[in-house]
């Protein structure tokens, strides 16, 4: 009755052999979908690779994909301690935008957003990138001024952005309360219409499948236990599945960057903290835009399934427990009810926590390290998901060329020594 699963496919299929389309779906319907091949092979490690990417989240898989696709690397593995997409890729609130104030941030996030816009086709996997707009609210005079600074910078960087008054906001978001008597009334806001959300798991799966089709080995349940470093150069990765030789090692392990760096004998300017999120029960559409608010500390969107997806700021203390303190949830939901009174009678279905690695300036690290041929891409804090394609793209470039390109260069570890930080605390006042 139950068909048992045979062992993994021996070789990766080409896109032609496993193409997704309405026609392939219809064709497979005739065979009751019993002939679909595996989306990717789950493999065991080979003794040696040109590049090992540590971390099979969105960023890691994207890195491997672009290494294979754009840099012709043939012999690549992505290894992960658990299942692919099981870290922050599968735990975030999926907001995508590029309306950052500092040039350096705008550069990388806009690069990423442009990749998002063609990603489903690039990967032949529907990532459901929904450009429904990301609307950021301002609630005080001071915030309005800050908003002008940001909006003007965004505009002059050639990124779309539109200022809205409360009435225009109400038109886009009919359920929002714009009563001026509120403790923190909605005084204005700005929207990036190209921003939006995507289906988080699909991003990891899409990159995994596309990377697999280019011959990348994806090795799950393969926890890293250490590195072999000879004369300051990395030579191999030690894992629970044995030692794997590598010419280059690229680490993208959000939530555990500090732990992995420690294994390589250096430390990073990173704190790992819980970031909580939650969803409501599914309801018919009431919110077609992503809403973010700094001063009342929350952000919310409604998923295609109908669930409201809410988040707030990270907890204050370091923790790897993937859970945070209840008062963060309470504060977030009070803010949500304050802005959207109709939320009050809806119900929280599920809450969870991720671990965010945050740098002192709330900007990421895309960098060479004190160990030759070991590269780190980490510290995305709360902004990692939206950066997935761009981060993978520039990181692949860094790993392939051993030199950061102009988009990645500002995010080198070096900045902490010289002091040229990219302070995005304003942007990351709440997580998103």
């Amino acid at each position, binding site marked *: 009755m139950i068909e048992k699963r045979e062992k993994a496919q021996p070789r990766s299929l080409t896109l032609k052999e496993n193409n997704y389309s309405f026609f392939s779906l219809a064709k497979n319907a005739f065979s009751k979908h019993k002939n679909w091949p595996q989306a990717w092979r789950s493999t065991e490690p080979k003794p040696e690779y040109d590049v090992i990417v540590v971390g099979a989240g969105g960023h890691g898989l994207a890195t491997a994909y672009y290494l294979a696709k754009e840099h012709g690397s043939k012999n690549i593995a992505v290894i992960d301690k658990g299942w692919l997409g099981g870290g922050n890729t599968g735990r975030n609130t999926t907001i995508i935008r590029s309306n950052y104030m500092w040039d350096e941030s705008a550069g990388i996030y806009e690069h990423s957003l442009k990749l998002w816009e063609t990603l489903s086709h690039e990967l032949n996997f529907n990532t459901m990138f929904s450009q429904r707009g990301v609307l950021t609210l301002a609630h005080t005079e001071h915030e309005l001024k800050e908003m002008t600074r940001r909006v003007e910078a965004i505009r002059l960087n050639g990124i779309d952005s539109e200022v809205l008054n409360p009435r225009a906001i109400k038109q886009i978001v009919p359920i929002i309360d714009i009563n001026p008597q509120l403790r923190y009334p909605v005084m204005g806001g700005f929207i990036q219409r190209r921003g939006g959300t995507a289906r988080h798991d699909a991003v990891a799966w899409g990159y995994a499948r596309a990377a697999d089709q280019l011959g990348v080995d994806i090795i799950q349940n393969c926890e890293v236990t250490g590195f072999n470093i000879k004369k300051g150069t990395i030579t191999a990765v030690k894992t629970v599945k044995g030692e794997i030789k590598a010419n280059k090692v690229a680490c993208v392990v959000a939530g555990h960057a500090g732990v992995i760096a420690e294994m390589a004998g250096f*430390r990073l*300017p990173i704190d790992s903290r819980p970031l909580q999120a939650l969803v409501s029960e599914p309801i018919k559409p009431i919110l077609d835009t992503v809403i973010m608010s700094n001063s009342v500390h929350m952000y919310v969107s409604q998923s295609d399934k109908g669930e409201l997806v809410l988040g707030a700021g990270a907890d204050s*203390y370091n923790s790897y427990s993937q859970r945070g303190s209840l008062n963060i949830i309470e504060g977030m939901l009070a803010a949500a009810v304050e802005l959207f009174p109709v939320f009050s009678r809806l119900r929280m279905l599920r809450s969870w926590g991720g671990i965010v690695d945050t740098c*002192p300036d709330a900007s990421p690290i895309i960098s060479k390290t*004190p160990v030759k041929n070991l590269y780190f891409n980490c510290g995305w804090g709360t902004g990692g998901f939206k950066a997935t394609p761009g981060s993978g793209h520039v990181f692949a470039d860094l790993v392939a060329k051993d030199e950061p390109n102009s988009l990645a260069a500002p995010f080198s570890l070096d900045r902490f020594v*010289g002091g040229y930080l990219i302070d995005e605390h304003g942007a990351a006042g709440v997580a998103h």
Partner: protein
Amino acid sequence: MLHIECPWCGFRDDAEFHYGGEAHITRPDPSKTLTDEKFSEYLFLKTNTKGLILERWCHRSGCRRWFNVLRNTITNEILEVYPVTETPSSKQGKETYDRNWRRISPSKKTPKTDEAK
């Protein structure tokens, strides 16, 4: 919600406290010359252990005193609370203190690199 034992006020919810990050970071002597690299190590590098960590908390809503805590960052279990001016006294605390990279002699600390970045 963590339940943290303030050495003076007793157990309280973590919402009453202010987190101070890693404990026992020695501030470099400003009268001595100090490279940018060394200074940035003091300023930015964090011990971000997955496991036991020595950290500082301040009972902000209570007696406003700072104190140190030995906590497991995986389970959030708190194993020791001790004065901010002292080092831990429990076995695990002592081990955690001694194991910290800041207190291991420099030769063992980082692998030699060709790239002094």
